[in-house]
């Protein structure tokens, strides 16, 4: 079972940032369960085989006020994929630095189709330039020492992975373009 954790403050945004992820996961015949990050209990994490952290809207930074809700990440031995805001949380929890700390950084804003250069293969995306869908106002200044950068756009870091654990992050939205990222994450043994 895949646990999809919604980072959306507004319930209406779940339809835009969570439902499309659920659609890709379900298309593989995988069962999933959805919980908002405020409501996630220890038992939800125990029951899950893998965890996906969703993105949220451009103006929603509410998760920065509740970082204590993600303290489980540091000890998590299960595969985790963070999308957009989900990646920012992973970066933050593992000692990296987010540009702006919850406030819009004008020169980091990316909205729409965008080109990203993958320095090596990443969850089904091969090395080289790829089109992605971006929707974010913040950027990643640096990742923690246990993380490796896999892809960058001209505005900064776009894909990361923990050096020894199955913890991944993408700043772009693979539920729009690049479904293979979610599909390959779901298929990890």
């Amino acid at each position, binding site marked *: 079972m895949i646990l999809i954790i919604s980072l959306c403050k*507004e*319930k*209406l*945004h779940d*339809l*835009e940032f969570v*439902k*499309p992820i659920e*659609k890709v996961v379900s298309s593989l015949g995988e069962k999933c369960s959805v919980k908002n990050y405020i409501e996630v209990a220890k038992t939800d994490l125990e029951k899950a085989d893998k965890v996906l952290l969703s993105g949220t*809207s*451009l*103006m*929603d930074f509410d998760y920065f006020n509740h970082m204590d809700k993600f303290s489980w990440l540091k000890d998590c031995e299960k595969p985790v994929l963070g999308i957009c805001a989900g990646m920012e949380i992973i970066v933050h929890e593992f000692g990296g630095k987010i540009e702006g700390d919850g406030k819009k950084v004008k020169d980091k*804003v990316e*909205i*729409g*189709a965008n080109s990203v250069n993958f320095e090596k293969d990443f969850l089904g995306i091969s090395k080289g330039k790829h089109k992605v*869908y971006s*929707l974010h*106002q913040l950027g990643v200044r640096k990742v923690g020492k246990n993380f490796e950068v896999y892809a960058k756009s001209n505005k900064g870091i776009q894909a990361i992975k923990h050096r020894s654990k199955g913890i991944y992050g993408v700043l772009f939205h693979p*539920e*729009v*373009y690049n479904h293979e990222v979610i599909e390959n994450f779901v298929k990890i043994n």
Partner: protein
Amino acid sequence: MRLGVLFSGGKDSVYSAYVAKTMGYELSCLISVYSKNKESFMFHTPSIRKTKFQAKVMGLPLVIRETEGRKEDELKDLETAIKSAKEKYKIGGIVTGAIGSVYQASRVQKICDEAGLECFNPLWQKDGNAYLAELLDNKFEVILTGVFAYPLDNKWIFRKIDKKFIAEMDVLNKKYKIHPAGEGGEFETFVINCPLYSRSLKFCGGKIIKEGENAFRGEIKLK
């Protein structure tokens, strides 16, 4: 949160408003951009000037902005309309009926970002067939007011979306890659009745105009 609905009168904008309302959000106004350009990238919808009839039965004020429909200028006109709706109706966000068009969705996202408004796309990435069935389940009466892709022709104009339509679209999707919900611009629609209306609009036929080899537009008459 008070919301303004980016409103063309077609199934996607009306249904997205319906979804927002059923989830407890307050609809404060509708926003329509009337484009003079039939090839408009953002706003070419055959029945756009009929949105005032829908606004009336929805009991909502309608913010109208006319645009010449030139590619980037029409976005400035949309921005003006959204900003004036924000000021007049104190909205905190915009709802759109975007399903899959990154071109349209990202432009509205940018305008909302500049205007300091939340942007909601409740139909984003929705499956076409499931969506059409959902429209019927929720008692939406929708007719086609334009077709713009082979093999759709004038016989499809004013057809109602019903179970037969969904079955036929499924066949056309497999054979000709027609998107079942018309997301590729294959067809345009108009909502005659839905749970947001105080009464049904009366559709009294209309004129079918040929606009090109595989393009027909229906000018509907309403009471």
